[in-house]
């Protein structure tokens, strides 16, 4: 009886976490380069009262065992690596990745962060930085008198300067690829950090044989959150929470019946 109470409570806690995750996905449905997370559940341990196939008598065995499960636990919030839609902005410093790669961003603490958000700006030194002011790694610096910035699909950044007709190459954007991008650690501000689960990054130039994908200049990658899907998930979470609370109520009422026995 007490088992049922705790089992139902585990279900309610899990659905609450599910709703927290759905809320975060929905809140970030307009965040550039955001990748939605999905909460996965798994069933907990089982108590075996009668093992299947154990001897019922000397001649016969029990056809089925008696196993009582002890609830549910949330296991992972895995990022879903589907491509978001492209939003054509026309801004030369808006870059979208078509493929599985990540931009490398140098964080203030010297660590390298990884991002799918390609909304770059220039800082006072002409370096390409994210909205938070963190530079691309390796850094790309645009000369102050550049009139036209072009980023090729292979990451080559070229500018044209007044008085010259030929374009000058100022750098190449490098990207990183992970064997298990679902295992990256989200730290906010569209930044992911490498973990032992994600594996070490494979670094290369876009469009190469590593499978990093290509860069699309003048586009931004929208978040890959499907609002309809999240709403459906939300309804499922809510109803599941409700049915678990129904179990708590039933267990409570059954306990009450037992307590009334002595009256």
């Amino acid at each position, binding site marked *: 009886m007490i088992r049922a109470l705790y089992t139902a409570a585990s279900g309610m806690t899990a659905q609450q976490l599910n709703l927290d995750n759905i809320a975060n996905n929905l809140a970030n449905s307009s965040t550039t380069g955001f990748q939605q997370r999905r909460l996965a*559940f798994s069933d907990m341990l089982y108590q075996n009262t009668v*093992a299947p196939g154990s001897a019922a008598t000397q001649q016969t065995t029990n056809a*089925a065992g008696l196993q009582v499960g002890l609830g549910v636990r949330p296991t992972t919030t*895995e990022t879903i690596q589907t491509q978001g839609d492209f939003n054509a902005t026309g801004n030369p410093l808006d870059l979208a990745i078509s493929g599985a790669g990540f931009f490398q961003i140098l964080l203030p603490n010297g660590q390298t962060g990884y991002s799918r958000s390609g909304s770059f700006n220039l800082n006072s030194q002409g370096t390409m930085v994210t909205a938070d002011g963190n530079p691309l790694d390796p850094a790309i610096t645009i000369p102050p008198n550049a009139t036209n910035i072009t980023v090729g699909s292979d990451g080559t950044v070229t500018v044209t300067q007044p008085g010259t007709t030929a374009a000058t190459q100022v750098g190449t954007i490098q990207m990183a690829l992970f064997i298990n991008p679902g295992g990256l650690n989200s730290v906010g501000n569209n930044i992911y950090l490498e973990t032992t689960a994600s594996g070490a990054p494979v670094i290369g130039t876009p469009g190469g044989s590593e499978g990093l994908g290509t860069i699309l200049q003048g586009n931004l990658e929208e978040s890959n959150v499907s609002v309809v899907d999240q709403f459906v998930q939300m309804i499922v979470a809510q109803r599941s929470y409700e049915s678990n609370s129904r179990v708590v109520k039933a267990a409570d009422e059954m306990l009450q019946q*037992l307590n009334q026995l002595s009256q």
Partner: protein
Amino acid sequence: MDSGLYAACTAMMARTDALDTIANNLANSSTNGFRERHTTFSSVLAGSGEPLESQLNVVTNSYGLLGNSHLDMQSGSLTRTNNELDLGIDGPGFLAVQTAGGVAYTRNGSLQISTKGQLVTQNGDPVLGETGPITIPSGTPVSISADGTITAQGAIAGKLKLVEFSATADPQSLGSTYYTVPPKDVVNSTMSQVRQGMVESSNVNPVSSVVELISAQRALEGMRHALTMIDTEIDKTAAQDIPRIS
């Protein structure tokens, strides 16, 4: 004391155990690949082996116990996720997984790639192909055909091992949506097809679970009334009123 008192008491204990299973089913209604369990009650004849004096004894001495719980092997619905490493299994098949405790079977096809490049479950256990764990080159789109053949970078990376359980098998739940059966009950599945980009939701039926919940609750209530009646009407009369009359 009347055997009816103990019969009602046993029935109450059985119903509380049944509630635990219903609670577990409902708690796992969002667990992908989960299979719900159903409980079966069995009756035990107290003093069996001795000749029964009357038909009445059959009823009064029959105790309702929670006999066993079995897995409901019905498929859950396949939900589209468009995630390339999500596999839904259409048919009775299970994926074979190499766990630390031996080979287990699962219907939870929400897979990942480990840092070693192996195709793993959410618990990090490698999924078995026909020739052992499957390694997938990184950063390439993975395509999985209906028969379980995995293609990456234009080359075949492996073929998923799909098995089914024989009809007489009683799969045991190991937790983490893993199930196990004795090796003799495992056969290769020919009827199952893999659907990439889909995941199988839990097969818990909320309607029947709530009905089971209500019936367990009401059965317990009924047993309580029976207990009270035996206690107040019959035993009290026997223990207190009859001595007073004499």
